[in-house]
């Protein structure tokens, strides 16, 4: 809860003006919130209640690995701190299977959600390696071979190459008996793509892949998030300023009423439930948290591709320069604008025979549809009210995976991650004992 309140405040840092896009991304189909209702929005914001979390081990060892990858591109000055890929490894003391977990949109390798998954997997006897999302700025700068994030296949190739390097550098005493890959949200789709790459390259011998609340079509999911943002906050500065002012006043009132002497984490934890009450506020918080992730992806993509949308390629911002104006411009940038002004121009040039339609099509899970249908080692856990899916997409997942999917009635987007039932199903999928939904 605290993180959402803080994230919402963070998002407000980063107002808006729109430029006419050169290429049009088709508008998102269906409602802004996908299949989500009020309960799903609430679950998405507050996450799994701590009392519902699966049993966790007492301790999990933590080894941070910072890698300088040989194929790293020149690093823009303002990203000086992102030169190395940072991942986290938790080793068992005996031979064990390795579970590689990929983070969700814009997130690093040590999020709260990853901590929960790490603990559950470690407790079940796995070595656990947690990796950032290919849309995390630290990954884009240190690992991406293009610097323009969001292409499922390219990001998958970069993840796969990085996994190879990491495994080659693990401490010698670590003995791996099997390799499985998992991911949540966008990381779920990344995990499936990585396994499909391994099926042709055979370098890591990945056994099973488990997708947790994955998108089916990247651009239809982000289109829905754009819509959610427009519906809950409106376009331009007025909406975001109004939301910020409302949030500020509510926090200040809660703080004055509390009689506390410091605005600390505990206060924020208690205040979040008072500050975020309506569907519109939940929607705004969700949409904002995705926009925060987008501003970093947008800036990195702009600089690496040389598109010059928010920075001048001839005079890129330097260390010590104010980034406030860029942040203000980025605050109003949508996922569609990222696709239209950075992503599509870059990949259309890079892939000569491609079209806008083909770019959208190759960023759907059905690029590996045949594998998902026929290979018994792909699994999925999702919710029937996940806001990043529409009815057709959920139907596609069910039809494609057959009995290898667990669909829960409630939870929204990741709002039941790590709860007892979901954790048990995840572990059953990973060890091959999954018998289909009960």
């Amino acid at each position, binding site marked *: 809860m605290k993180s959402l309140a803080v994230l919402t405040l963070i998002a407000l840092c980063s107002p808006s003006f729109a430029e006419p896009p050169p290429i049009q991304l088709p508008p998102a189909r269906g409602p802004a919130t996908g299949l989500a209702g009020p309960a799903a929005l609430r679950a998405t914001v507050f996450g799994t209640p701590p009392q519902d979390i699966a049993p966790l081990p007492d301790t999990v060892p*933590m080894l941070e690995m910072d890698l300088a990858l040989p194929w790293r591109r020149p690093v823009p000055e303002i990203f000086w701190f992102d030169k*190395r890929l940072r991942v986290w490894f938790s080793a068992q003391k005996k031979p064990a299977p390795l579970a590689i977990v990929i983070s969700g949109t814009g997130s690093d390798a040590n999020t709260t959600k990853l901590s929960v998954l790490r603990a559950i997997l470690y407790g079940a006897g796995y070595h656990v390696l947690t990796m950032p999302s290919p849309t995390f700025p630290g990954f884009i700068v240190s690992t991406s071979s293009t610097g323009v994030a969001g292409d499922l296949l390219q990001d998958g190739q970069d993840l796969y190459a990085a996994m190879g390097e990491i495994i080659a550098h693990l401490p010698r005493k670590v003995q791996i008996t099997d390799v499985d890959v998992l991911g949540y949200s966008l990381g779920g789709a990344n995990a499936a793509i990585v396994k499909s790459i391994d099926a042709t390259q055979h370098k890591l011998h990945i056994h099973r892949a488990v997708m947790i609340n994955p998108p089916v079509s990247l651009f239809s999911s982000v289109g829905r998030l754009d819509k959610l943002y427009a519906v809950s906050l409106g376009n331009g500065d007025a909406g975001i300023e109004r939301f910020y002012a409302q949030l500020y006043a509510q926090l200040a009132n809660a703080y004055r009423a509390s009689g506390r002497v410091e605005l600390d984490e505990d206060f924020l934890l208690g205040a979040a439930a008072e500050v975020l009450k309506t569907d519109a506020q939940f929607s705004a918080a969700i949409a904002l948290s995705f926009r925060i992730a987008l501003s970093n992806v947008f800036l990195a993509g702009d600089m690496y591709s040389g598109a010059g949308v928010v920075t001048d390629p001839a005079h890129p911002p330097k260390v010590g320069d104010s980034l406030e104006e860029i942040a203000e411009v980025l605050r109003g940038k949508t996922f569609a604008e990222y696709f239209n002004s950075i992503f599509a121009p870059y990949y259309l040039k890079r892939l000569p025979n491609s079209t806008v339609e083909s770019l959208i099509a190759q960023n759907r899970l059905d690029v590996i549809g045949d594998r998902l249908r026929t290979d018994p080692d792909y699994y999925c856990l999702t919710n029937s009210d996940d806001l990043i899916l529409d009815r057709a997409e959920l139907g596609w997942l069910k039809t494609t995976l057959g009995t290898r999917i667990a669909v829960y009635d409630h939870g929204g987007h990741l709002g039941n991650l790590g709860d007892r039932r979901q954790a048990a199903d995840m572990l059953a999928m990973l060890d091959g004992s999954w018998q289909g939904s009960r």
Partner: protein
Amino acid sequence: MRARMSCAVAVLVLAGCAAREVEFRRWPSETPAENNKADIAKMQGLQAAAAAAATLATPQASEQAGSGAEPPPPLVKPDDAPSLKTYDPWARLNRFTYRFNARFDEAIFLPVANGYRRFVPTPLRGGVHSFFANLTEVDSVINYTLQGRLHRTVRSFGRFVINTTLGIGGLFDIAARFNIAYEPTGFGTTLARWGMHPGPYLVMPLLGPSTFREGVGYGVDYGTDYGINLADLYRGDQSWGLGVANAVDQRANVDFRYYSTGSPFEYETIRFLYMRKQLIEDAGLHRSKPVPKPKPDEPAGK
């Protein structure tokens, strides 16, 4: 000579910290079961507090409270929110200091604090933390008095006496067991209570985000401690060792890592959050008064 050697070591550490292909850093183990238990307790506490607040808000309860109850503070309205911009006339210097702090933290401060957390047993670390917290009660007693919040002066004084005696020089926080919570204050808050505005955003070397007012407050607090020189802890050679131990203890208890966001906008983000936190805390210090309406387009903190 000693200073030159220290500088040379610091430069070597800072320069060499990212030289190898793979860097390993072992962190203290995570304790998921214990953390989950704490989260459940916190959640239950919040639910109980919310239920109690709802009961107090009923008309019958308000009537029972009678006319002696403190009137609710005037509401802060959305129009009272400061601008999205933050007053930062020293931005260039601040950014430089932020970068320096990040490098220093990554190369020296954080590894030392991590080693401390990994190798020093929890009860001993708890004792060290309580000891330094107890010393700050001296500043709290003086500043709560200067702020005219005498009931809090009494609380801080009581904590200091209990913990220094029953808590063996402050090594144990016995007062907390009597539900007298640790609520420190300093001269920065006293200035705020006296009506001084936060002033420009300021990143202090090693200490991090602050404002001009808080920076002055920090200096005065340090001067006060030095002047009082409780148990001769603040002067002489031993003060250096204690200063370092205090810094390590504080770092080991702060869950923050520079640039873990991976974002080049981190400086702007922290500045935005820190200044709003200050302004909301200021509003809490003057809870019986309406919050002054900000001028249009004036950056927060000016």
